């Protein structure tokens, strides 16, 4: 992560007076997997399009591989592969013909073209379907064909818009593996999603979008510290009487939330698991499970947006 391949500064885009993207700034390092995260309509796709020069920013500046995509779009688009949300192909052409068309647009030499197309199809596991019409392809296969196009281009940066939405679990698994292999090749990957667990597994850093702004930016553990306040919660699964009171009585415990009859979420300022175990054992309760709640982007996301909503309500009141 020595050099930044993408720099966005104070990017703003307005649609009919409303700011879809509002003064966002971020950088992406060479070889990084960077996730744009947020609800639909938060400005993720618009941001990605501005990086490609497909949408003009109203103000702010972008540099992709040291170039301005507005001034030299062709040079940028030669190095950057893009896979739009729900990527489409010409249904009446085969996978190979579809890639051949874009290969010509990419100016790949005629001599190399066929070999590179075959290699790209093989890479994404579509070699056996090369001569089938795309009309017969499933959603997952189309997504993989979209990725094959990026492989074919030998792009240095891959920009993927919602690559895993609408895929079944197995296809998702497959696709995340392919993205991992791109990273292995040293390709910088930018992807947007609203599916948090996917992002958590493959992203080095994520940017949380909220109403056109980046609300949070950092690696998942960093964000957890920022939003969840230092420690993650402890989940206790135990059977016995008067447990909430008992848990609350332990020194260092800030609050106890009952998840159901016998499961509780305990927030604390310090490591309290040994104390909880001792206290429960002392009270004669059956301790079934005692665990740090896993650091999940889901938790960060929900906590963050709940806090935002509360803030807004308070402002409105």
């Amino acid at each position, binding site marked *: 992560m020595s050099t930044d391949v993408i720099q966005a500064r104070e990017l703003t885009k307005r649609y009919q007076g409303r700011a879809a993207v509002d003064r966002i700034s971020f950088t992406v390092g060479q070889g990084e997997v960077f996730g744009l995260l947020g609800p639909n309509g938060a400005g993720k*796709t*618009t941001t990605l*399009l501005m990086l*490609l020069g*497909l*949408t003009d920013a109203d103000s702010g500046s972008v540099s992709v591989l040291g170039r301005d995509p*507005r*001034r*030299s*779009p*062709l*040079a940028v*688009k*030669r190095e*950057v*592969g*893009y*896979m*739009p949300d*729900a*990527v*489409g*192909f*010409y*249904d*009446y052409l085969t996978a190979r013909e579809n890639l051949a*068309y*874009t290969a*010509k*647009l*990419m*100016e790949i030499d005629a001599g190399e073209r066929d070999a590179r197309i075959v290699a790209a199809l093989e890479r994404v596991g579509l070699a056996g379907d090369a001569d089938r019409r795309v009309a017969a392809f499933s959603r997952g296969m189309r997504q993989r064909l*979209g990725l094959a*196009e990026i492989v074919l281009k030998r792009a240095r940066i891959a920009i993927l818009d919602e690559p895993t939405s609408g895929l079944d679990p197995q296809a998702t698994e497959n696709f995340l593996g392919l993205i991992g292999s791109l990273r292995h090749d040293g390709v910088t990957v930018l992807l947007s999603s609203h599916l948090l667990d996917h992002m958590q597994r493959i992203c080095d850093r994520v940017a949380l979008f909220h109403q056109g702004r980046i609300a949070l930016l950092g690696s998942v553990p960093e964000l957890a510290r920022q939003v969840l306040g230092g420690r993650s919660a402890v989940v206790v699964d135990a059977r016995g009487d008067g447990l909430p009171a008992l848990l609350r009585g332990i020194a260092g415990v800030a609050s106890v939330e009952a998840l159901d009859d016998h499961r509780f979420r305990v927030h604390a300022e310090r490591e309290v698991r040994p104390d909880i175990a001792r206290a429960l054992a002392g009270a004669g309760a059956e301790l079934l499970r005692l665990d740090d709640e896993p650091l999940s982007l889901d938790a960060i996301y929900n906590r963050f947006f709940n806090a935002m909503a509360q803030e807004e309500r308070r402002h409105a009141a």
Partner: protein
Amino acid sequence: MRREGSPMQGMNVVLLKELADHLRSGRMRVLEWLIVLTAAAALYGVFQQIRSTTASDPYIFLRLFTAAQEPMPSFSALLGFLVPLAAIGLGFDAVNGEYSRRTMSRLLSQPIYRDALLMGKFLAGLATLAVSLLALWLLVVGAGLVLLGVPPGGEEIARSLLFLLLTLAYAGVWLAIAMLCSILFRSAATSALVSLGLWLFLSLLWPMLAGALAQAVATPDPVAQMLGQPGIDTLQWQLALGRLSPSQLFAEGVLALLVPSTRTLGPVFLSQLQGALIGAPLSLSQSLGIVWPQLIGLIAAVILLFTLAYVLFQRREVRA
């Protein structure tokens, strides 16, 4: 802001792909058969009719294009009717089709400008129409050779080739209109409906409306009314308004090119005919002089409509 790189980069790739798509599409095949069959029907009657006058008519080949045998219209009138249909068929989903297939943003993320995409699509449509028209022309000339047994003269060939060029310009206008609609409307069905509606309006309704409008704008003077004639002002207005429709320009061009005895496309005064040999054919260069405004008008309309489509397409958001 100046952009780097040629705007035409990748245009040939787009052109060849679209051309291949057109030539093997079922849509084009249907349109071609429609034109070939109706043309055959129109020509069959004409052959019967003009075979008897082969010896006396110096422009017997041109008669193939212009003669009509009831109930079929002439071959050129048929083309004037069907060529717009073919052009609209090729262009009505040129741009919105890429959106609905969700291929637009993927294409534009390749190293090409939008210019290349639009230009490539337009030229591919025009090339498809040119190939079809040329094939049709060769069929007609070939059939003429076989059935009439007379070779066409050099001037006849030149006039009919110019007619081909005129038809192509006319087709270009409708292709540009269809592509404009495909940019304006997100749905291909709306785009097709609007282009076809425009075609019906300009070809069938506008000639009638032009007459009525001319009456309203320039009321005929009493003298003319007494003579039962429209009056020179009214006539001029009617012509000018009528020529706003490309089909009117095409019809006039056909008349001047394929009927060599046509001396004018507007009103003529008796005094202007003094010394003229009525019915004597004009030379090609003089016919060309008559048809020049019509031909240039059609080409200008193509350029104007394409430019409008280009500007709108540049402003269109990429996201669907």
